[in-house]
C-alpha cells in the first residue's frame, strides 16, 4: 500500500502554497515574503535544473532575437554559429594555445600577488606604525584604474608575459592584502593568551593559531582575487600583446569575426568560474569546522 502518494510530496505542497501566497492573498506583504521564500526553498533544492533551465531559455531567446531581427553574424551571431566557431577554434588549437597563455599569466600573477599580499598583510597587521605609514599609499593605488597603469607597465616590461603577470599581481594584491590584515587582526585575544600561557614560539603561534584563525577571511579574499586576476590578465592583453584570450578577442573584433569574440568570452567565463570554484572547494575542504562552510548541515 502506498501511503505517501505523489500528490502530497512536500515540494508540490510548497509550490501550491507559494502560488496561493503570491497570488490569492496578494495584498498582504507577509504572504508575498512567505511565497517568495517557499519558491526559493524549492528552487534551491533543484538548483541544477534551475540553472539548466534558465540557460536554455536564454539560448532560445538569443536565437529568436537573431532570427526575428535578421541580424547579420558580425552584429549578433546565433548560438549555433558561436558553437561552430568555438569548435573550429578548439580543433585548430588556437583557443587552447591562447587559453594556456592566459592561464599561465593568471596563475603566475595570482601566486605572486597572493605571496606578496599575504606577507605584507601579515606585517601590516602586526605593526600599527607600518600600517599607518603605508596604508595611504596602498589606498591611493586603488584609486587608479588598472587600465591607466597597464600601458606604462607594457612600456617598461615589454609586451610579453612579464608585464601581464605584473598587472595580474597588482590587481590581486589589494583584496588579498586587506583580507589578510582583517583576518590576522580578528584572531581572538583570548586564544592568543591561551597559546602564550603554553609558551608557544612565534612560529607556533603562526602555525597553530594565526593561520587557521585567519583562513576563512583570507579565503574570502582569495575568491575575489581569483576572479579579479582573470580581469587583470585580459586588461593587460588588450593593451598590448600578441598572445592570450584578450588578444584573441581583439583579433575577432578586427576581423568582424564576432562569433570568435563570443567563443572567447565564453572561455574566459569558464576560466573565471573554474578558478572561483577551486577556491570554494578549498574552503569546503579546509573549513569543515565552520558551520557556514561545512557541506552537511549540522544544525
Amino acid at each position: 500500500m502506498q501511503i505517501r502518494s505523489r500528490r502530497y510530496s512536500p515540494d508540490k505542497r510548497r509550490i501550491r502554497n507559494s502560488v496561493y501566497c503570491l497570488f490569492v492573498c496578494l495584498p498582504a506583504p507577509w504572504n508575498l515574503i512567505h511565497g517568495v521564500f517557499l519558491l526559493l526553498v524549492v528552487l534551491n533544492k533543484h538548483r541544477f535544473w534551475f540553472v539548466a533551465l534558465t540557460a536554455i531559455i536564454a539560448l532560445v531567446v538569443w536565437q529568436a532575437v537573431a532570427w526575428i531581427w535578421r541580424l547579420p553574424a558580425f552584429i549578433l551571431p546565433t548560438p549555433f554559429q558561436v558553437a561552430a566557431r568555438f569548435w573550429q577554434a578548439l580543433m585548430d588549437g588556437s583557443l587552447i594555445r591562447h587559453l594556456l597563455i592566459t592561464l599561465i599569466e593568471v596563475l603566475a600573477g595570482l601566486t605572486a600577488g597572493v605571496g606578496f599580499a599575504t606577507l605584507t598583510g601579515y606585517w601590516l597587521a602586526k605593526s600599527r606604525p607600518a600600517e599607518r605609514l603605508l596604508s595611504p599609499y596602498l589606498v591611493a593605488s586603488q584609486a587608479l584604474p588598472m587600465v591607466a597603469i597597464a600601458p606604462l607597465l607594457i612600456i617598461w616590461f615589454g609586451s610579453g608575459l612579464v608585464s601581464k603577470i605584473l598587472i595580474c599581481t597588482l590587481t590581486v594584491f589589494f583584496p588579498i592584502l586587506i583580507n589578510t590584515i582583517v583576518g590576522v587582526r580578528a584572531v581572538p585575544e583570548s586564544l592568543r593568551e591561551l597559546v602564550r600561557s603554553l609558551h608557544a614560539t612565534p612560529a607556533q603561534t603562526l602555525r597553530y593559531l594565526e593561520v587557521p584563525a585567519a583562513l576563512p577571511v583570507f579565503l574570502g579574499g582569495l575568491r575575489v582575487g581569483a576572479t579579479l586576476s582573470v580581469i587583470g590578465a585580459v586588461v593587460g592583453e588588450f593593451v598590448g600583446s600578441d598572445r592570450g584570450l584578450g588578444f584573441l578577442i581583439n583579433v575577432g573584433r578586427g576581423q568582424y569575426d564576432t562569433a570568435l569574440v563570443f567563443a572567447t568570452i565564453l572561455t574566459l567565463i569558464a576560466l573565471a568560474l573554474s578558478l572561483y570554484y577551486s577556491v570554494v572547494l578549498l574552503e569546503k575542504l579546509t573549513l569543515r569546522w565552520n558551520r557556514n562552510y561545512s557541506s552537511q548541515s549540522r544544525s
Partner: protein
Amino acid sequence: MEPILLCRHVTHTFPDGNGGLQALNDLSFDVCPQEFVCVLGPSGCGKTTLLRLLAGLLSPTGGQVLFQGQPASAARTGFVFQSANLMPWRTVLQNILLPLELAGGVDDTGRREAAALIELVGLSGFEQAWPADLSGGMAQRVAIARALIHDPDILLLDEPFGALDALTRDRMGSELLRIWQAQRKTVVMVTHSISEAVLLADRVLVLTPRPGTLAVDQKIALPRPRVEEMRYSADFGRLAREIKGAISSLPFS
C-alpha cells in the same frame, strides 16, 4: 614548606585614558607546593586579573610575582579560562592535545593520557566533535582536560565550573578533588561557590571589591582525603559560615 609561588605587594592598574583603572591593590600571599588555594570575591574585583598575573600573561604594574624565584611566565601552567576558549578549527581531541603539540609532539603516551582524560571528564564518543557542536558545559570540560594533559607545575582555574549545572558541578568538583589527591598539583582556583571552596581548598582567599586586596586568608583544616559527605559536617558548616560572614561584611564597591 618553602612557598613555590610568591605574590609581593602586587598592584595592577589597567591604562584607561584618565589615570588608569586599578584592579588590584597591594596584594601579598604565598602558595606552597601541592597547596589548593581558592579565591573568592565579588564580580569585577580582579580575580581574573590575579590569575593572569600568576600565569605571567600580565606583568604587575607594582610589586612582584615569582615562581620558584623566577618571573611567573617561566612556570608551566595549565590555565582554565572563564570561558572555554577552545580553538573552533580543532576537534575535541585535537584541542586537548594542543599543549603537547606545542611542547614538541604527541607520542603514544600522550594519546593514552588524552583518552584517559576524555573518559574522566565524561566526553567519550565526542573525540571527533567540533567545538561548535558542544554545549557550554561540555566545552568547559574539554578546557579542563586540556589544562591537565601536559602535567603542569601549577593549575590556574578561573571559575572552571561556572557554566555547569549544579549536579555536574558537584561531580566535576569531586573529580578535581580526586585528580588533585592523586597528582598533588599546586592549584589556584577562582570560584563563586563558598561550599565548593571549603570542600576543595587548603586555604580560601577572599578579595575586597575593586581595587582587590586581601580581606581574608582562611585555612581550611578539614582532614584529607575529603569526600562529598563532609559538606554536612559541623566543621564544614562553621567554616562556610565564617567565610560567608567575612564576605557579607565587605563594603560594596
